[in-house]
């Protein structure tokens, strides 16, 4: 069926099919932050349910409100994460995850999607972690493309980075196939690789007294997306030092 009007969304919420996902998070100080592509993980919202409630076909975020303490200059990125895999530098291993999803897009069923990588440090890297070289499938579906992971040495847990380099003229990836390691010396560290399905980019000022922002995902920041079970929704800030946040994300169960 699918909700197809503002009124249908209203009626759906009134019937008890909305949920306010609330949470707080700390953005972590990043390492040497001379490059723009550094990010900090601010918040992971509660994961979406592991099974569809009766009568619910997908989950649609409709509204984000966010308090930042001393807002990160340039704001934050809210996205539904694609788990592309995990790299363990300590064991020189890669645990594969998912591909960018295949979706119905502009009337075409089973359309492959592509996008960038955000690398999240979950266990701090040491100086001997070395270099991870990704083999990936590019935006056009070409396999065997390789590029070194953009990651600063000794990055601490909670820091993150945008992958800004690709092979040749590539501009996105569909999947990571494998990872090779080089230059390691008693390595340690674990990173998670996220694909980005963007929901909102919110701006907050550099006020030292806190700032707030709102994304209206069915209105002026229109971004209606249907998310599935177990989806992780993340908020990363373009910040280079620790910032904290309180946030609420409203989600409606589609019919």
């Amino acid at each position, binding site marked *: 069926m699918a909700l197809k009007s*503002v*009124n249908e*969304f*209203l*009626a759906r*919420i*009134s*019937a*008890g*099919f*909305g*949920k*306010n*996902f*609330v*949470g*707080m*998070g*700390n953005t972590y100080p990043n390492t040497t932050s001379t490059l723009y592509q550094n990010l900090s993980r601010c*918040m*992971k*919202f*509660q*994961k979406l*349910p592991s099974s569809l*409630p*009766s*009568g*619910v076909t997908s*989950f649609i975020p*409709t*509204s*984000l*409100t966010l*308090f930042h*303490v*001393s807002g990160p200059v340039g704001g934050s990125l809210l996205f539904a994460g694609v788990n592309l895999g995990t790299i363990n530098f300590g064991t020189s291993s890669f645990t594969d995850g998912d591909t960018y999803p295949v979706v119905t897009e502009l009337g075409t069923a089973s359309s492959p999607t592509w996008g960038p990588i955000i690398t999240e440090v979950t266990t701090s890297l040491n100086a001997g972690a070395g270099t991870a070289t990704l083999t990936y499938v590019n935006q056009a579906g070409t396999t065997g493309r390789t590029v070194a992971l953009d990651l600063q040495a000794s990055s601490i*847990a*909670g820091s993150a980075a945008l992958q800004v380099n690709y092979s040749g003229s590539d501009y996105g990836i569909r999947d990571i196939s494998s990872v090779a390691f080089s230059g390691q010396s008693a390595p340690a560290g674990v990173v998670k690789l996220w694909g980005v399905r963007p929901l909102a980019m919110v701006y907050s*000022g550099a*006020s*030292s*007294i*806190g*700032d*707030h922002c*709102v*994304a*209206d*995902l*069915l*209105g002026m920041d229109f971004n209606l997306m249907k998310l599935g079970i177990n989806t992780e929704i993340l908020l990363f800030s373009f910040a280079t030092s*620790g910032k*904290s946040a*309180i946030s*609420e994300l*409203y989600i*409606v*169960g589609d019919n």
Partner: protein
Amino acid sequence: MAITNIKDIQKRLASGLGFYMPFVTENTPGAGGWNQGQVEGSLTPRIQGFYGSTYPGTLLGIPIIGGGANTWLTGGVAGSNANAPVMYGFFYKIGTFVTTATGNQFTHDAATFPMTRTYFGEVTKPVCLIPFVQVTTAITITDPRYRLQTAAGGAGYVNQDGASVVGANSCGWIGVTKPSGFATNLYLNDLDCAVQDIIQIRIDTASTAGACTIWGFEPMIMLGCFDQGMAGYRDGVFAGMQLTPMSPASTTGGSSTNFFGGVGLMQPDNVCSQGVLWGVKD
């Protein structure tokens, strides 16, 4: 009867099947600086209660005029006399603890958690809360240190996913005496964003004086601007679709101590916010 469309909301507000809730709130005192908790990843919010509250003894919530069971909050407007965006919502008392002795010092409130609501069509689902620690007896230096775990190293809180978690972080306050009323958020484990319940708090370093209340906060609407003299407006349909029930969540057992108030970040002392919330009966 459930809301069916926008005109339905407008009709109910016109015909009196709704509410307008004016309020004036003031923030808790926070002498000693707003950023005392930041080094440990903490926020230092100002809990805002209804005007006339005496912190922490007589914390008055905003009177729910016309709200209550089977009502929906559909919008609001508020401003303040200082830089003050404020999140308004329900505070649920989870329990209390003292900092004057080491070991397990947390006493849970009589109400059984988690708090519950209907979500995605399913009844009695646990509510996630943002935990705030409010000082009720001034904490003196030596700064106490605590962890969200038992004296034996067992779980100290139930996280947003319902898992019982051993809190890994050493928490506390820094430097100055914390006056009665001062608040910080609890420093949860990395990747946890909220709690369903608090199980225990272990004091590792005691202070000579100090007691706290832990509130679980359920935000409903954010209002206000970061510049005084301006008002923030929020419409639950056209400025971020979000209708929230204007009644507290239910306990799993017993009666909860709760109030409707606000959380403002980084505000100076003696800030007042004022505004109106509105909504409709179901």
